[in-house]
């Protein structure tokens, strides 16, 4: 749009002036107010009134923080891809160069792992490499190859024939997939050791050229408790994590792309196979086999986020208030108050949850008390209750569960706030409320930012509270899950009760995506991860 000076504007006729004004408003004024931002320094920021400050902050968040965040994210991802590509190129280049330049032992090591180590007196390493190769070959011949070969179809021989008779020697999809995944992991591990074995040769040749000593078995054994001690320490925990977390998660991600469910259990009724993205489509469809998963998913996702928000922040602020009350100057018996609250952490949670659940039952103690005072009995937590009642009750009970813990967390941090901050504030005439909002809260939020994030995601996955208190109640007809179900409790119901393993796996992946997205964004916006000196 051409911007006119005053003279040319006055030359226009009435209509053209009107059109000009109209255009000006939408193309210049609105963008200037809403989409343009000038970065302010601290002093000019402080000169603004409160509304302008809020406006500035909101604009700053949307126009600067979020775009920079995505720009940086893009850069990071690009860097990652580039690094990965370069790494692979480097890997192959190294292999070729080592083979060409290496001596006969190095060349032989490409086919017989460990032979180079033996030739250079590293008996222990040689034995380990050779064993790895032997184990790998035997495994691939006797088990791995078989399962890997069927991995593509997940089995062809159905366990039941057309007349529902049990077939002998039928395939087992579950086993094929599990061992297939295991074999993939094993192949990766083998390639890594094979590469290590070659790298060893290269290093040793270099050492020989420089006439330096090559580590023998005795040195290797010493390194286990000395130079390489971290590997010794990490071996067991890492193995545990790979076998009991990484491999199962990999397996479940694969399950998300199969039709593994009650009617295709892969063992006794029918095999399951790959179905691509069908399960994702089912979960987001309004009518799949008479079940409305999309509505259920939407409702539960929203409630999960609402729940996580309230569960985190009510506990946080009230826990902070309780901690401040106990720590208030001139309050005696601090230890007693604290111990009373701490005791409730010590009681295993399932006992307190189940007991409180029965206190709030329709014929429980709470309702007796209400009736005693002349009220009507209320459905707090069961299927006859309204969704709103149950949700509020659950959040309130969660406050009861969570405050003692938050009280402990915040007490320690409160004591670290420099006392002179409060002193100078009260000399300047700040009242208690102002001190709370201007000193305590910002300090606490700054220190506990990362903790708030983890407890938010922890609450999203807070299985026990929901499962033991409500079991998801109330369960309306038109939804596939209860209205207080979280994504995780629904996941539990899908897998353990309905045996829809594949849908459960999809839901698990979605939970991961939601948690990861929230963590990523919040972590990049949190002040304590960037501005580390703010309170120092």
């Amino acid at each position, binding site marked *: 749009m051409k911007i006119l000076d005053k003279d040319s504007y006055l030359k226009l006729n009435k209509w053209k002036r009107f059109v000009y004004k109209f255009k000006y408003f939408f193309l210049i004024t609105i963008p200037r107010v809403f989409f343009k931002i000038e970065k302010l320094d601290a002093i000019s920021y402080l000169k603004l009134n409160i509304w302008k400050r809020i406006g500035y902050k909101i604009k700053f968040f949307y126009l600067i923080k979020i775009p920079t965040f995505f720009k940086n994210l893009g850069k990071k991802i690009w860097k990652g891809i580039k690094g990965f590509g370069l790494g692979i190129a480097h890997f192959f280049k190294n292999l070729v160069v080592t083979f060409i330049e290496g001596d006969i032992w190095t060349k032989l090591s490409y086919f017989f792992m460990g032979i180079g180590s033996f030739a250079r007196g590293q008996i222990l390493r040689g034995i380990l490499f050779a064993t790895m190769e032997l184990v790998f070959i035997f495994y691939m011949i006797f088990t791995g190859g078989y399962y890997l070969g069927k991995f593509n179809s997940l089995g062809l021989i159905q366990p039941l024939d057309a007349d529902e008779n049990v077939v002998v020697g039928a395939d087992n999809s579950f086993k094929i997939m599990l061992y297939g995944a295991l074999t993939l992991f094993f192949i990766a591990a083998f390639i890594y050791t094979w590469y290590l074995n070659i790298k060893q040769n290269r290093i040793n040749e270099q050492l020989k050229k420089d006439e330096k000593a090559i580590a023998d078995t005795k040195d290797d054994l010493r390194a286990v408790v000395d130079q390489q001690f971290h590997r010794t320490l990490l071996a067991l925990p890492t193995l545990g994590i790979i076998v009991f977390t990484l491999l199962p998660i990999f397996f479940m991600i694969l399950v998300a792309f199969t039709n593994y469910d009650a009617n295709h259990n892969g063992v006794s009724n029918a095999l399951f196979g790959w179905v691509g993205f069908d399960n994702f489509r089912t979960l987001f469809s309004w009518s799949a086999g008479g079940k409305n998963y999309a509505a259920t998913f939407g409702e539960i996702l929203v409630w999960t986020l609402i729940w996580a928000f309230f569960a985190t922040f009510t506990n946080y602020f009230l826990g902070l208030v309780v901690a401040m009350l106990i720590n208030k100057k001139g309050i005696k018996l601090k230890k007693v108050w604290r111990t009373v609250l701490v005791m409730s952490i010590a009681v295993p949670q399932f006992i307190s949850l189940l007991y409180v659940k029965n206190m709030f039952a329709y014929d429980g103690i709470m309702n007796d008390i209400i009736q005693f005072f002349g009220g009507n009995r209320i459905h707090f937590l069961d299927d006859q209750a309204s969704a709103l009642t149950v949700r509020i009750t659950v959040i309130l009970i969660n406050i009861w569960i969570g405050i003692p813990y938050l009280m402990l967390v915040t007490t320690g941090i409160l004591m670290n706030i420099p006392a002179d901050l409060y002193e100078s504030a009260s000399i300047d005439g700040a009242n208690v409320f102002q001190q709370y909002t201007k000193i305590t809260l910002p300090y606490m939020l700054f220190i506990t930012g990362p903790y708030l994030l983890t407890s938010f995601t922890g609450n999203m996955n807070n*299985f026990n509270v929901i499962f033991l208190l409500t079991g998801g109640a109330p369960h309306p007809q038109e939804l596939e899950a209860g209205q207080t179900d979280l994504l995780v409790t629904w996941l539990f119901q899908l897998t353990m009760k309905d045996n829809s393993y594949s849908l459960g796996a999809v839901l698990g992946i979605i939970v991961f995506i939601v948690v990861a997205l929230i963590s990523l964004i919040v972590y990049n916006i949190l002040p304590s991860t960037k501005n580390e000196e703010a309170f120092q």
Partner: protein
Amino acid sequence: MERRSMGMAAKRRTANIITYVILVMISIIWIIPFIFLILQAFDVGNPGLTGNVWPEKWGLGNFAYLFSSESNFLRWYFNTFIIALFACVGQTAMQFMMAYALSRFRFKLRKPMMNVMLVLGMFPGFLTMIVLYEVLNSLGMTSDNAVPGLILVNIASSGMGYYVAKGFLDTMPKSLDEAAEVDGATKFQVFYKVVMPLCKPIVIYTVLTSFMGPWGDYIFAATIAKGSQEGMNVATGLNSWLSTANIGGYYKYFCAGGVIVAIPVIILFLFLQKYYVEGVTGGAVKG
């Protein structure tokens, strides 16, 4: 001037009185469910869910039932105790091995490892349950023999919870290690002779939390025990008494069981409270 300070004192007194009132109310709210629980545990009148808190008839009958051969409670209790015992040793060891390596050594895979563990931690925990159940099942470690299976599941991946221990180790000056290494100590000797003795408070915290974990563990225990009375832990067992079918006959036994389960943990907790508070606050600050 004097009048003003008197006014301040009076103001402060009222503020304190209000605070006391609130604190007393808070204490009552937090403690009363547990008092109700204990009272109902001593009620030998009607074993089902009743409205009265004050026992119809006092007696130790509910506790006697728990310890008699009629109920499986002792079995559940013993199962949980064994799991907790192994878990607290195993988890502490795993977490410290992981934390020490990540805190004291700088190696190429350090950052990638930490990132992978962070990402793995974002998957809901029991997504893996189906696979683990099948694997343990093929090893014969489910239903009646759920205890070894649960021990394995509890310990195996516990290295992922290294954060609190690492946070503590990170604050320990590296000059300590270096001094010992100059004196000829190997890295292993530095680990168990120099650093570990200084970690006592955080070790106690880790032991305490990992001992308490199995007492409240519900889903994993329920899945692996799969309804077997022999393999249940207290949480699964006591919850089965509260099912719609059982609650009419077992509610008071549940209360008595709850008391018995809570007592040892509370005692342990009161003794080690100091360490727990230290661990919790330290862990929160580091995030």
